[in-house]
């Protein structure tokens, strides 16, 4: 909690739509969150990622004792190390939804701003631990793409390109996932930032493609607080961002049913994630980025230790 409080305090001045439109502030925020998070941390949350066992080899001095096979030692009293098939750096693919529906924000920042902040923070954190990161900004097609890189100097490029992205077009997360699945056979982590306002079957199909290639998939479900709470009052005219429909109504009258519908929607996305062994993270834009990311990363750490 202390960590979250510090991170939030640092984040606040930077959490401004205009500031976020500049790469520097995005970088500053990412750095402040990551540094705040790393205070007292001994291990990266992304360490010990799912790399498959290949063979044993005899221990030699200087080998990391973490890879020592204790079971063999117990049975044979000999020192063997576990060798894994792939022992290379982690690659994390950041998929950022920049469709028009992400342009909604009941407060100062939009869902897109929030997603950008999350992506920037993660990119920064991954590069810092010497892993590789790739980025694709999409709507129905590719809006921008940064090839995988483990060069920490690339972070500025990533931040700059994130900063200039603006919301437009419709959503097609599944297509973006398919592209990643087709382009990168090597296992990695696909981190998706989207509101997932699209066809849920297609979304699940996209996830399954990634999972088939043994990619780990993390779904950051970015929703504005009003989309979750629907606390409008008086008479309102709602105009669809990705649709041409428009409707005037008293929101209080429809709140209950709307909340039920959006709740069910969240539950469905969560179930899709669960069915496909993905992580689902609800990113409520009223919560600080540090809190959302910190919460998730702490969870991963705990899961890593228990493994």
């Amino acid at each position, binding site marked *: 909690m202390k960590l979250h409080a510090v991170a939030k305090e640092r984040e606040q001045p930077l959490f401004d739509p205009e500031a976020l439109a500049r790469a520097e502030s995005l970088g500053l925020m990412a750095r402040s969150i990551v540094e705040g998070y790393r205070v007292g941390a001994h291990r990266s949350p992304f360490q010990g990622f799912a790399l498959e066992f290949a063979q044993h080899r005899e221990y030699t001095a200087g080998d990391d004792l973490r890879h020592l096979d204790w079971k063999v030692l117990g049975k044979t009293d000999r020192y063997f190390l576990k060798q894994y098939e792939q022992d290379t750096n982690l690659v994390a693919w950041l998929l950022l939804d920049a469709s028009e529906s992400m*342009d909604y924000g009941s407060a100062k920042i939009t869902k897109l701003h929030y997603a950008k902040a999350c992506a920037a923070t993660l990119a920064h954190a991954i590069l810092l631990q010497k892993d590789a990161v790739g980025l694709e900004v999409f709507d129905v097609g590719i809006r921008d793409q940064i090839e995988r890189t483990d060069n920490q100097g690339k972070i500025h490029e990533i931040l700059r390109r994130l900063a200039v992205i603006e919301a437009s077009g419709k959503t097609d997360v599944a297509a973006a996932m398919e592209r990643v699945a087709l382009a990168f056979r090597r296992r990695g982590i696909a981190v998706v930032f989207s509101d997932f306002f699209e066809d849920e079957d297609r979304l699940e199909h996209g996830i399954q493609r990634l999972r088939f290639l043994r990619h780990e998939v993390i779904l950051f479900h970015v929703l504005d607080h009003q989309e979750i709470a629907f606390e409008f009052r008086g008479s309102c005219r709602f105009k669809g961002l990705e649709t041409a429909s428009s*409707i005037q109504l008293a929101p209080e009258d429809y709140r209950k049913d709307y909340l039920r519908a959006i709740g069910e*929607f969240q539950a469905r996305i969560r179930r899709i994630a669960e069915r496909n062994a993905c992580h689902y993270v609800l990113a409520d834009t009223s919560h600080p980025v540090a809190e959302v990311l910190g919460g998730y990363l702490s969870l991963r750490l705990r899961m890593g230790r228990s493994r």
Partner: protein
Amino acid sequence: MTFLAPWILAALPAVGVPVIIHLLNRGKPQPIRWAAMQFLLESVHKNRRRLELRDLILLVLRALVILSLVLLFARPAIWTLPGSSGLLPSPLSGMIVLDVSASMAQSDGRRSRLELARDEALKTLDQFSADSLCGLILATDRALPVVPRPSSNLELVRDNLNAVRGTSSATDLLPALDRAFQELDRSPGGKKIVFLYTDSQESAWRERPAIRDLAGKHPGTALRSIQIGKAGEPNTAITGLSIQPSAPTVGEPAKVRIDVSNYTEKTIDGLRVTLAANRNKPQDETTLPPIPAGKSASANLKITFDAPGLQTLRAEIPQDLFPTDNLRSLAVRVGVPPKFLILAESRMGDHRTTPAYFVQTALDATQRGAEVRVLPPAQLTLADAQAASAIFVCSPAASGDAQWTILEKYVRGGGGVVVFPEGQSSAALGATPSTQWLPGTLGQRLAQPASWVQSGLQHPVTASWADANRTRLTNISADVRFELSPHQGASSLVKYSDDVPVAVSSEVGAGKVVLFGIEPVPNATKLVLHPFFPILVGGLVNYLAVERATTSTLRPGDSFSASVPPALIGSKVFLESDRADGRAEVGIVAAAETEGRIKIPSIDNPGGYRVFVEGREESVAAFAVVLDSTESVLTTAEPLEIEAGKEAATGAGHTAVAGAKVPRELWTIFSILLLLLCVAELAIAHRFTTAR
């Protein structure tokens, strides 16, 4: 249902306030660009109809709340039976005073006010307990007690109520209420109530202060007024009918003025007025110019009578809801130009010294339009005599027995004859067989001047001269005169100072005859040169006119009486109305001293009437019964409601109005209704709010 404060209803448009608020709220929606549209549309699709229905229910409820609030303050009331709010006390001494004036004939097109009043009185009577007493008094402008004292025989009251008929009289409630209060004072204990059923016409309450005083004098008696009908019906009335000249003559057109009043609340245009004589078809008609509300207009129509005698005029306008005053009648006497016959020999020399000259001059002066003919007595025929209104015999000596016989027949048939002497030859006139029917006998010619005396003047011709300050008969004298001895039954017109009659008269058969004892020439008396002479001749003409039939105008309910010649005593009397066919027998001519008398009691229906006597073609009298014009003003006044000698507050819910029912305020009901509506509105609104 009615409202005791109807002006509050002006706030009824406030019912639209919820709609206006609803529209204003819809006016400026907050625009929101929304991403999760599919979920919102899903919710809208599911709930729209339900919410629209809810909004409609709430809108209606809120409008109803305002509506009932406005209605509540407008003090709604319903008409209930006077006693329906509670049973009458028992035992009760009650007097039912039922207004039966002409205005109670007004109707709403279905039932008259009187019918409604009677029904309501019967309903009240039903609530009397068996040990209660009840009386019945009908009210017009006088009290008409039917069951004069409170009686335990309620059936008698009921039967009399059922038999009640309307009258055409004006209204004044005071006499009937006075009577009712007095009767209840004499009645034994128990609660005492006067039930007044009236249309509450303004004129009926003109004695309001007196009625208040009356109630104050009888503090133990309550007055419950039940107003029949809310307000007076719109009414147009003929309020005046007059003819010029007042005694028209046959064949001469007369001008009739008809006054029509508009008592409605709007201008009346194109009102048709017709005028007819007796029961004939209308002779003349016109359409009146627009009459503004509350104003009157006059029409001048012409009428020509084709027969002399007593006639009636009938003016009509189209019938409205109060038809009694849409017709008005007037009785008129239609005369013929009178014809006078002077029997006189033509004389040589200056005719201006003859009696005929002076008589003719006097007739010309007093009888305008009359035809005066001088005829030698020898040429007289019965036909000539019967065509004359009166015959003046100025040459009696020249008249033979044949002429005297003709004259006698003429007189007995109803004619009038005045006989003047002529020279010495006139002595013994009245003593001969042919002149015995004359009222006196002329004796010696006296050359002693004598003046008239002014005392003992009782004869119809001279009775009006008894006042010496107005007429000085003592200035009139005679130089040469005849001694005149009256026959039995004859009466003197006036006498000389030596008690010798100047003239005597008597009735002979149906006619009258006057015999003078002086020649109408300056040599005999200066009377003929005196201005008084034409007046005397005029008086004689009027006296001799046997047909004394009269015309008059009566109020509804008045009785009619008229004198007729004694010859008609015992004859049947018939009445002919200008509003109904046929003649109704109404009695016989009664004997009254020296004349016959027709008496017709209580004629109520307005109209023109002619009175006929059996055996005579001409009517002997005519009269019109005319509605009091105040009765045509149907505007109503607040009725008095008195409890324990004190006037109850106006509009306190006790005053009986329209449809013969009492207004009972619906304050409680509307309060409960308002409360229920408010609760329903709040409950529904709350339910929908919590459901959000």
